[in-house]
């Protein structure tokens, strides 16, 4: 394949699946210039890593999630972002606040409020748990989540079950500070 054709093929794939780039950037960066920067960083890294993509080893979307998440986590970890995004740890108080605000007006809550609550929840997760939850929300199978993250399917199921079973506070044990990495 000529370099020109290779680039055309990449650009076609990128256009087809660009929502993945925007979704990942959306949960790892603030709105505005920071998010645009991250989108561009991901796109550039995807292109630079395209040579290593082997369709026999992974689906394009799986590979794309891996690259996008690796770039986004590194982006989040960088000192500048750490200072700007110094997130507090997700503990009982945080989750209770989110859950209580929803429980208080379950019927009155419009979509915007629910979306805000969802984003508040995601943004309080540490980098790895954020990736796990994002892939779950994106309706990826446990097998694909395991493939992207590099953990076992059992581990994915256990972590998600914990979050599902204990959504109001007890998830705190599975989180650390925003930029750090989660524990079990």
């Amino acid at each position, binding site marked *: 394949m000529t370099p020109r054709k290779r680039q055309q093929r990449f650009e076609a794939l990128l256009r087809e699946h660009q929502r993945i780039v925007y979704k990942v950037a959306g949960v790892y960066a603030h709105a505005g210039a920071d998010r645009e920067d991250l989108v561009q960083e991901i796109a550039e890294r995807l292109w630079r890593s395209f040579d290593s993509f082997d369709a026999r080893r992974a689906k394009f979307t799986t590979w794309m999630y891996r690259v996008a998440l690796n770039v986004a986590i590194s982006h989040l970890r960088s000192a500048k972002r750490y200072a700007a995004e110094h997130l507090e740890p997700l503990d009982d108080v945080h989750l209770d606040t989110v859950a209580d605000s929803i429980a208080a007006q379950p019927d009155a809550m419009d979509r915007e409020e629910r979306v805000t609550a969802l984003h508040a*929840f995601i943004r309080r997760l540490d980098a790895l748990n954020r990736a796990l939850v994002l892939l779950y929300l994106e309706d990826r199978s446990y097998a694909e989540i395991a493939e992207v993250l590099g953990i076992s399917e059992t581990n994915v199921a256990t972590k998600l079950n914990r979050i599902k079973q204990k959504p109001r506070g007890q998830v705190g044990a599975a989180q650390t500070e925003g930029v*750090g990495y989660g524990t079990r």
Partner: protein
Amino acid sequence: MELDDMKRVWQEVSAKLDGLQSEYKSLRLDVRKNAAAPPLRRTGAMIWCELLSNGLMVVLLGVFVTHQEAARYIAPALLLMAASIALLASSVLQVRSLLQIDFGDRVVAIQESLERLYVLRLRVIKVTVLLVCLLWVPLAIVLARVISGFDLYSVGSGWIETNVALGIVAIPVLWALARVLGRAFERARWGRFLLDDMTGHGLAEARRRIAALADFAADAQ
């Protein structure tokens, strides 16, 4: 709101956004116009620069040693050469680690590789600061000889002994200073991180992240 409710909200919003193509500015590959620095670009550039400068240092010191006959110049040059070779070896290790990082690989594995590379760099920074403190007298002797032909030994052995002692004393002083200044530079990105690196806070933080990565990857009970 349960996680499954969140999933429904997410998919509702996603479906709406996916329908509005204008929400996603058509993503184009435009590397030349891209002002953002992808991860590792800056670190990678620094690692390659260090490899070249350490290699150059070894070569220049080799040339210096071969053109000297007096042992009093060869000895400090050999000390510097040994330090340069050690730093060159660390640069080679870093380049090897850097080249092995494939962002298309599994997230936990790549983040661990990045953290290990970071740990290696932090160690090199600490060792470099230590070497500068300990070897600045031999460096001054060689530089004075190369630049002006001046013989620093002629100043007297007292000068050399005092400065070697000062270099040794400088290590704990710098460490203490870094701890104090670390607080003052809390808002200055580069100052704070360099000082954190010197005091070992950065290293401790990186080790904590590696442990947390291993914990995340370990099968949950």
